[in-house]
């Protein structure tokens, strides 16, 4: 029996308006309790719980072009808790899907959310995956999303990860994406760390197929005593592979950031580039906004919020 009231409460606590989840295919889980699940023709979700995990398998049928997004809602409404998710996700050939993953941890005082994903995007399929985290004021939230993604011939994986509301707590992202012939992988991450937040972001894209293309883009703002380590790894392993790593971090106060864009090329006809910029707010940006009358703190906020939008 669907019980979405706690979900709406969690969205409300995060200052968000809940999307029209009941009408769309979805999976809603609080901790390891499945609150609601809905499949639609061509889109199948099988979920069960084991002792300390939620095990989900999602299959999108060949050629399905779902105009409505699919929602995955994970969260906790207790003050303390753990949520472990094992997700196996398969997009069959030529399918196309937008997956919205809402991770709601605005209310717990201390919690751990771990996800181990195994994602396969088959020939010619497209997955747009948007993972948005909504946290509260507690710095004791631990988020550990790890995944391996296989992008087959001509397939596309377009992923956006954002954690820009509330304290990050401890974030440990580890994604590895293997891209086949003419496949595309674009990973964008946006994180706003403050207080004593600790962030580790490892995103590795291996362009293994001819003409494969990849992009790892990171935008991060840090202040107070936050710490971040960003590793963007791009490998060009086949003819015509093109990849780029783009990392920009704004650091204020006592925050510390490191960015290690790593490019590896094992084929003479592959090309991989990178750019990384870490520093305080750009002085010309700041003064441009101040020349419009914004106070310095308001100008910084406009710059940071824009970068993380």
């Amino acid at each position, binding site marked *: 029996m669907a019980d979405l009231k706690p979900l709406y409460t969690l969205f409300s606590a995060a200052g968000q308006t809940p999307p029209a989840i009941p009408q769309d295919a979805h999976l809603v889980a609080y901790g390891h309790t499945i609150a609601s699940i809905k499949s639609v023709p061509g889109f199948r979700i099988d979920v069960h719980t084991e002792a300390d995990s939620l095990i989900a398998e999602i299959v999108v049928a060949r050629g399905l072009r779902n105009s409505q997004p699919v929602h995955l809602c994970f969260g906790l409404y207790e003050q303390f808790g753990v949520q472990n998710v094992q997700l196996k996700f398969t997009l069959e050939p030529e399918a196309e899907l937008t997956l919205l993953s809402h991770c709601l941890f605005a209310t717990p005082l201390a919690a751990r959310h771990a996800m181990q994903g195994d994602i396969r995007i088959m020939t010619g399929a497209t997955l747009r995956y948007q993972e948005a985290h909504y946290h509260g004021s507690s710095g004791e939230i631990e988020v550990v999303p790890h995944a391996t993604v296989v992008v087959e011939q001509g397939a596309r994986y377009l992923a956006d990860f954002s954690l820009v509301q509330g304290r990050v707590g401890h974030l440990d992202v580890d994604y590895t994406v293997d891209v086949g012939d003419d496949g595309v992988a674009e990973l964008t991450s946006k994180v706003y760390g403050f207080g004593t937040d600790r962030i580790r972001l490892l995103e590795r894209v291996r362009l293994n197929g001819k003409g494969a293309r990849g992009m790892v883009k990171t*935008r991060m703002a840090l202040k107070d005593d936050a710490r971040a380590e960003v590793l963007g790894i791009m490998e060009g392993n086949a003819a015509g592979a093109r990849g780029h790593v783009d990392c*920009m971090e704004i650091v204020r106060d006592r925050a510390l950031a490191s960015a290690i864009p790593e490019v590896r090329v094992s084929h003479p006809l592959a090309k991989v580039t990178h750019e990384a910029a870490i520093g305080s707010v*750009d*002085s*010309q*940006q700041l*003064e*441009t*906004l*101040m*020349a*419009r*009358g*914004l*106070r*310095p703190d308001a*100008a910084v906020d*406009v*710059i940071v*919020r*824009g*970068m*993380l*939008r």
Partner: protein
Amino acid sequence: MTMLRLLDVSLMRRNAPILDRLSLDMAAGEIHALIGANGSGKSTLAYTIMGCEGYRPERGQILFLDRDITTLPVHERAHLGITLAWQEPARFEGLQIRDYVGLGGKGADVDACLRRVGLAPDQYAERPTDKTLSGGERKRVELAAVLAMRPRLAILDEPTAGIDMISLDALIAVIEALRAEGSSVLLITHQPEVAAHADRASQLCGGRIVFQGTTAAVLDNYRRRTCKRCDGETCHG
């Protein structure tokens, strides 16, 4: 009425004098062109008037409507009605043109400002003010933001550089519109056809004003210059 007065302003950058005992008066509603070779101090003067970081004069005073603003920060000068359009405007990820243009002008008609600089609102308003804009587009957005602010003093640093000839007419119309709305304009330019719209002009060389008068006279003097400092060496002293 004197809008802006610089009195004996000197500024050093990296131990070199960039502005050297420079004095300048601008009347309310005046369009004043600054003309000079690269490195003569035109942009430095713009940043100094705006109060940018690192451009505080070692000596001299800047008065705006008789108030000493020499030590005021940028945003307080903006509150008094001064603004600056940079020669190479900054770009902002995630900041839509509509929001950017409207930042300094509460209640401004952003669409009208965009149209005045030749940008169709339905094509541009929702776009980000980032590197996806060409240099010319970004400069037009900058002018739209200045228009929206309805400043008392607009400092335009090379507003037409990198702009095609068709857009040039539109941008000259913007300068005239600023004048019509009562703004003073300090216009830094290399282009005689743009400077010709100014009421008066000053020729800079080596961080000093070496000639001042009607725009035609200053342009004529600049064309006939014989000193090599106007082309990179120093001509006074």
